């Protein structure tokens, strides 16, 4: 596996299905599995649980592969687990497909697999099935991961955008922008002062805490690409709702605010990997807030009463009241976030 510099690297043969591939899987991936003997079988057999399951799939293509506060491995595992949590499901089982690029440093792969193992432990999930492929140099970006997750629904009531009701309150679980800025800074070689770490973290503990308090969660949504602006617009569109948001209530750290000012970015557009919006009945606002406030969360707005859903998809509005008591309509970003010129 050595190259002239002595660095061990992935070779095409590692995906060839022969003994080289077997050795790679045994050495690098076997320890991730809940039941390592499953590796020898074509499919994993799981016991059927009672009640409903949530099922979600995610592909991770992040560059750089390692960034402040995480890497592609922890991002894949935690991201998939968080998607399950947003459906009210306790994450349990994971599949893990890896697409390796010829030439990938084996030392780097080991670091990422170690991070996958750690993230699985944090999320309480185990890898049950997997796949390994190798593509030629130049045909992959070092490493792609694809993960699917299965979780058991932990609440009798559905958690879904269609369950949003007029008068509900909108809570945000923490501050904005850290993941997006950390990635952007490492991708473009920007030296942010102070440096920022991704907010990547499992969301299930916060969801469970809300459920333990008996909060009737109408809807949950994690803030990923597109940020808070995108999530609010999507949820408002789901029922042609009018969301009224208080800008001053949206937590943004000074470090994020300053970096955004310099780069010309909007913190509302930046991706998070450890934040979510919760929409709950107004009657339970105080209890829900107590749970989330302890984690840095705030109540940021309401679903305006008196407006009937049914205006068709895409008809929602997000109205932001600024700290100056003026209002604006907040729209999601259109595409790639690009730092401005001056």
């Amino acid at each position, binding site marked *: 596996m050595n190259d002239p510099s002595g660095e061990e690297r992935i070779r095409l043969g590692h995906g060839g299905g022969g003994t080289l591939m077997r050795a790679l899987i045994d050495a690098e991936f076997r320890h991730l599995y809940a039941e390592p003997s499953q590796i020898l079988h074509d499919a994993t057999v799981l016991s059927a649980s009672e009640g409903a399951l949530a099922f979600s799939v995610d592909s991770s293509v992040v560059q750089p592969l390692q960034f402040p506060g995480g890497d592609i491995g922890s991002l894949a595992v935690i991201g998939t687990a968080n998607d399950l949590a947003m459906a009210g499901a306790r994450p349990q089982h994971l599949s893990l497909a890896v697409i390796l690029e010829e030439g990938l440093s084996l030392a780097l792969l080991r670091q990422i697999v170690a991070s996958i193992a750690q993230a699985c432990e944090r999320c309480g999930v185990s890898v049950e099935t997997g796949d390994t492929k190798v593509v030629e140099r130049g045909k992959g970006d070092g490493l792609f991961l694809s993960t699917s997750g299965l979780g058991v629904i932990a609440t009798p009531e559905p958690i879904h955008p269609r369950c949003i009701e007029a008068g509900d309150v909108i809570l945000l679980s923490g501050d904005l922008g850290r993941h997006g800025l950390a990635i952007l800074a490492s991708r473009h070689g920007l030296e942010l002062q102070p440096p920022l770490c991704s907010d990547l973290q499992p969301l299930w503990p916060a969801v469970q805490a809300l459920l333990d308090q008996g909060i009737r969660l109408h809807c949950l949504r994690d803030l990923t690409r597109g940020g808070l602006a995108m999530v609010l617009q999507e949820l408002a569109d789901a029922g042609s709702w009018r969301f009224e948001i208080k800008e001053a209530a949206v937590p943004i750290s000074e470090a994020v605010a300053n970096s955004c000012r310099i780069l*010309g970015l909007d913190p509302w557009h930046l991706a998070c990997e450890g934040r979510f919006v919760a929409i709950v009945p107004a009657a339970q606002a105080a209890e829900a807030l107590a749970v989330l406030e302890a984690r840095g969360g705030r109540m940021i707005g309401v679903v305006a009463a008196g407006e009937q859903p049914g205006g068709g998809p895409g008809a929602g509005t997000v109205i932001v009241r600024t700290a100056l008591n003026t*209002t604006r309509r907040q729209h999601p970003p*259109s595409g*790639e976030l690009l730092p401005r010129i001056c």
Partner: protein
Amino acid sequence: MSAAEIRRERPQGTATVMEVCGGQTHTILRWGLDQRLPAGMALIHGPGCPVCVTPLPVLEAAMALAQCPEVILCSYGDMLRVPLPVPADPQQRSIDLLSLRAAGADVRLITQPQQALQIALQEPQRQVVLLAVGFETTAPATALVAIQRRALQLRNLHLLVAHVRVVPAMARLLSSPESRLDALLAPGHVCSVIGLAEMEALAHTCERPVVGAGLSHSHPERALQLSGRMLERGDHGLRNAYREVVQEQGNPRARALLAEVLEPIDLAWRGLGLIEAGGLALKGAYVEADVRWGLDRGDTAAALAPLKRQGQALTRAPAKEEPEICRAAAVLQGHCLPSDCPAFGSSCRPEHPLGAPMVSEEGACAAWMQYRGGG
């Protein structure tokens, strides 16, 4: 129209103020400052969006160069999404540098011009072209790269310079026959580089209030109130409402870099037409860094044809800069608001912009779209 004529003509007690800087446009709309204007004041947006006013021949040349296999084209984020109308296309489609990248061109997003220099050092067999755009805020960094290029004898690094100067454009906006502007907010970050002397001379010549302002929400608001008071009293002249950053003399080191490397040229801004001394070009010994001098062979010579045709000074605006329906030129000159354009929010949206002001966050149309919504 003179300041006195405008005052005579306008309805009693109304005044139009323009913020020149696109960053301020963004702040004003995001914070809803236009909902809290001093009584009798109307606000109109200006041309201070660097990518919006970059001349089309420069963009054409950049796109042609990007398609040459030996070229790595480097520029800033917003510039990569500026649309170039496809000539004679019945569907009025446009292309941008990102779509060329998707088709295989080597287009790199940079955040500072030094990165282009690094790429040229790392890839000596490739020809690296830096598309350098922006006002006096970004021009000193380009000048520094030109100096370093010369010191390192880095012959595979070329500059395609389209820097613009803000004061000549402000003079044009105030002195044009159609101008109805009573006062201007001057871009504070440009003032922090070039100092206040040129702005002061402009305010006196044009007999209008000009107020320097920054980008945070309190800055434009403070400047708007100050211009309101000046208009009430019938004052003109320059006021600095951004003293925490803007010094009388500007930034001496940045000014020295500009003076060493660049000189004013007449330039046809996209949307505004020819502006006397409205652009900057490499001068003296630094001319050899100009892509038009250094890349004069093979495919790249053909790629530079649009620039060559226009001549060194780029003084003639192409006949057609935007699709028929797009009113980008009128928006950039403050003749109308984005919402007055028939394409705004319908056929022109951030996902498929017709004009450059819908592209950049500093573009007035994009800011309106984001904070007021379209359609």
